[in-house]
């Protein structure tokens, strides 16, 4: 088995502390800095710093999980399977957060279908799709007893399900009306936001992806330890 025992702890702690500091500053800046006056949204626009980065982070998690699933099929390495699973778990977590922040935000700010919890917006459907895929992935893993089979077949399902993502990303939104800013018929968010919001927005994306990285590597390390002790890699 490939040796992943030696993690450079100093470097790891450095990056981890950097990420934590970064996210703290983003949180403080998000709530304390001024934002321009935007119609309808007003101060709820601060949700932009949290809602959109969740989406980016879930996409990053999906890519990481897909890459490691591909490597599982290519090499059959159980460590890759651990990585794919943990990326999927963290991705689900961020996806649920993104969905919740979006739903609460839209209940109060989207005019068409205002005060409803679900708007059948293409991007809402996309997040739900990804969450359902991961839910099915976890369920599929639980039905196998043999670890090698479990790794290979769940990796195949992960990749198969991802083949449908380009449709949701590019094709369906072109055809459905959307209430999201930046989609069909709505002004892009960049048109109605002041550059000052971008000063917090871009660092927020980087910060949350960094947070994903910290959580992901920690979970992978715990899962690796568990695997070494008990030969069981589910975490």
């Amino acid at each position, binding site marked *: 088995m490939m040796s992943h025992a030696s993690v450079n702890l100093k470097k790891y702690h450095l990056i981890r502390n950097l990420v934590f500091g970064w996210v703290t500053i983003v949180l403080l800046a998000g709530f304390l800095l001024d934002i321009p006056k935007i119609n309808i949204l007003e101060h709820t626009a601060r949700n932009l710093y949290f809602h959109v980065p969740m989406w980016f982070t879930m996409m990053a998690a999906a890519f990481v999980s897909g890459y490691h699933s591909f490597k599982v099929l290519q090499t059959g390495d159980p460590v890759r399977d651990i990585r794919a699973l943990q990326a999927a778990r963290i991705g689900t977590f961020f996806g649920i957060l993104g969905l919740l922040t979006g739903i609460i935000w839209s209940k109060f700010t989207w005019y068409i279908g205002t005060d409803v919890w679900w708007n059948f917006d293409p991007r809402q459907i996309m997040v739900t799709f990804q969450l359902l895929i991961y*839910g099915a992935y976890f*369920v*599929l893993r639980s039905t196998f007893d043999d670890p090698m089979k479990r790794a290979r077949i769940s990796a195949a*399902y992960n*990749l*198969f399900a991802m083949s449908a993502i*380009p*449709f949701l990303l590019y094709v369906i939104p072109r*055809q*459905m009306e959307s209430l999201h800013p930046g989609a069909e018929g709505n002004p892009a968010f960049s048109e109605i936001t002041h550059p000052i919001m971008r000063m917090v927005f871009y660092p927020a994306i980087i910060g949350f992806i960094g947070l994903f990285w910290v959580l992901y590597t920690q979970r992978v390390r715990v899962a690796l330890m568990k695997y070494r002790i008990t030969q069981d890699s589910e975490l």
Partner: protein
Amino acid sequence: MINWIIGSWAVLEKDLRLEMRSRYALNMLLMFVLSSLLLMALAIGQNPISEHMQIALLWVVIMFSAAIGLGRSFVAEEERGTVLLLQLNVPGTQVFAGKLVFNFLLLLAVDGLSLTVFSLLLNMQIFNLPLLITALVLGSLGVAGATTLLAAIIARATNRGPLLPVLLFPMLIPLLLSVVFASRQALAGGFGWIGAQTELVTMGAFAGVVITAAFLLFEYVWTD
């Protein structure tokens, strides 16, 4: 190339022949379609429902029938103990191709029955039958592609429950959006071929992508 077609045809012919002997899966599937259609029609009652609802319910029945009926294609091999024989005699892609066509034909039977019975029960006004049939066929191609690979996946699982629907329905979400819209164009208030053309292309593309991905991934699922 010819060998590949001959091999796939052999797998298909084997499945068809076994099916025609007992008609077990076919009968069960068609009875399931009939009962669920009847259930829905009775639940709806006399009140007329909009075209949206008619197409939505039709496709829900087709999806559930696919999830329940098409899963048997690989599970039956496991039960009969013929998996090893198949693995030794026929390369993986040919097995998949044969099973795919078999599932597609089963699904076409389901489509035909559902459309006929549903249109009678609900008094559907179909303005453009060729369009509706094209939408059903294209949609079924995508559903069959996804279901066949997932059937191979669940055949390997030791504890199965309603596993195929759990795996299948998320994958079919993009297809469902397009296929319901395209089918609706054939009813009253629809725009016919013009209105449906983007969706039909999308459905064709979805079927192509899903079947290609399934061919690529089948080897990893099928061989130990």
